[in-house]
């Protein structure tokens, strides 16, 4: 072990960073692959089917087979399309979905870039994602793609406002933009986590997250029954797969952020109770994974349960319901913070 550590310290800093990034991205991509399988399985069982069960034991190799199939498919670039923008669009959509993970902490100190503007960086990068959508829709030069991109872009920016206000609430409560500080501000017990004082913001954050990723019931941008697939209708093979990866990586990102900001990240849910020592053998990042998985399951659950919203309903929910509630609750939280209200804002929890 000490030998390995001495080798690690001999490596140049850039190589160390690269190895950390690989150690993050590879499991993430595996997670994305198996999230697609989980989605088909979960929705299958919710609809009393079995889902994919042919490739490998009970369908366990299905994502690998899908990836190989997409890799061997032709990448069609339609004649009317703007070739360069058409190629750039998938890159523009996967880049922010991956790069935002640089500031996500998995445990105390287990983070690639521990910057003090963490949450601002996350907000900036998730905002960039909309460029991928709108460039793809415009560059395809196809009516379905353009309509899908417009709808998607308008929806994403509308919900980004509600999401941003929810983030401001978290920053108010924690007094920091650094995600590690935000998690540590929640230590104490499960009641100290921010889901309780910020409950409306928590609910709105997660719903806005579902809308941001264009998932059901907000999947009007894809709307299979009216505009076939939305902005990526003209994409095929690996170019389409990149959009797919980005969407799922974004889902995992939103879930991980919700777990970090509202459910105490890697903190044990039994902190401060007699059960704490019983579960002390669980490594902290397992708690984060468990909480993230819970949110991911909700994504799938929503898709199996809710019918699709109409476009005017989506815009009304975003602008006329979420924004007034978030502004109001922001003032409530600010008032509590200024008056150092126990048990969350008296500074003793941190």
């Amino acid at each position: 072990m000490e030998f390995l550590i001495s080798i690690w310290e001999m490596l140049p800093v850039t190589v160390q960073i690269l190895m950390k990034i690989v150690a993050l991205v590879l499991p993430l991509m595996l997670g994305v692959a198996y999230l697609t399988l989980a989605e088909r399985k979960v929705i299958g069982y919710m609809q009393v089917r079995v889902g994919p069960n042919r490739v490998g034991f009970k369908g366990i190799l299905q994502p690998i087979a899908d990836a190989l199939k997409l890799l061997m498919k032709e990448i069609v670039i339609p004649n009317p399309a703007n070739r360069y923008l058409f190629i750039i669009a998938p890159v523009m959509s996967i880049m922010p979905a991956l790069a935002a993970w640089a500031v996500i902490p998995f445990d105390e100190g287990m983070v690639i870039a521990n910057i003090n503007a963490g949450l601002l960086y996350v907000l900036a990068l998730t905002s960039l994602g909309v460029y991928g959508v709108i460039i793809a829709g415009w560059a395809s030069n196809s009516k379905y793609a353009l309509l899908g991109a417009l709808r998607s872009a308008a929806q994403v920016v509308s919900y980004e406002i509600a999401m941003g206000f929810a983030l401001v609430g978290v920053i108010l409560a924690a007094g920091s933009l650094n995600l590690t500080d935000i998690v540590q501000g929640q230590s104490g017990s499960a009641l100290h986590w921010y889901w309780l004082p910020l409950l409306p913001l928590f609910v709105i954050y997660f719903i806005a997250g579902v809308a941001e990723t264009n998932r059901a019931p907000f999947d009007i941008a894809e709307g299979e029954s009216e505009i076939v697939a939305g902005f990526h209708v003209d994409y095929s093979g690996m170019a389409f797969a990149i959009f797919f990866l980005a969407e799922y990586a974004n889902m995992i990102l939103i879930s991980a952020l919700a777990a970090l900001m509202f459910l105490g990240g890697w903190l044990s849910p039994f902190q401060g109770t007699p059960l704490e020592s019983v579960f002390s053998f669980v490594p902290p990042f397992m708690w984060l994974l468990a909480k993230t998985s819970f949110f991911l399951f909700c994504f799938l659950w929503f898709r199996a349960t809710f019918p699709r919203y109409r476009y005017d309903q989506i815009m009304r929910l975003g602008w006329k319901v979420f924004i007034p509630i978030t502004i109001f609750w922001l003032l409530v939280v600010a008032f509590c913070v200024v008056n150092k209200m126990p048990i969350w804002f008296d500074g003793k929890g941190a």
Partner: protein
Amino acid sequence: MLENYLPILIFLIVAISFGIVPMLAGYLLGPSKPSEEKLSAYECGFETFDDSRMRVDIRYYLVAILFIIFDLEIAFLFPWAVVLQEIGIMGFWSMFVFLFILVVGFIYEWKKGALEWE
């Protein structure tokens, strides 16, 4: 201070290459048999009626403009939220006035019908 951002720079490069490399691999491994029909824009099997660079609904622009205003508010609230614990009650009331003016504008937009989609 700035060296904290080196991992982010490297991560951005890795993330971009993560978009490019699979597409290159797909381009090299996949077949390439273009035909005129295959390369036409997808329109459910119909011939393309007219150009797709068409006029779009004005409300999309309206949403974009409103978004810019509100997104700037959020960017403005971020530093205030970080230091509120230090600046105390004075900071709270200053931002209250600011948010009040913002809400007046928001109500005006609402009454004018800028948020309607029917």
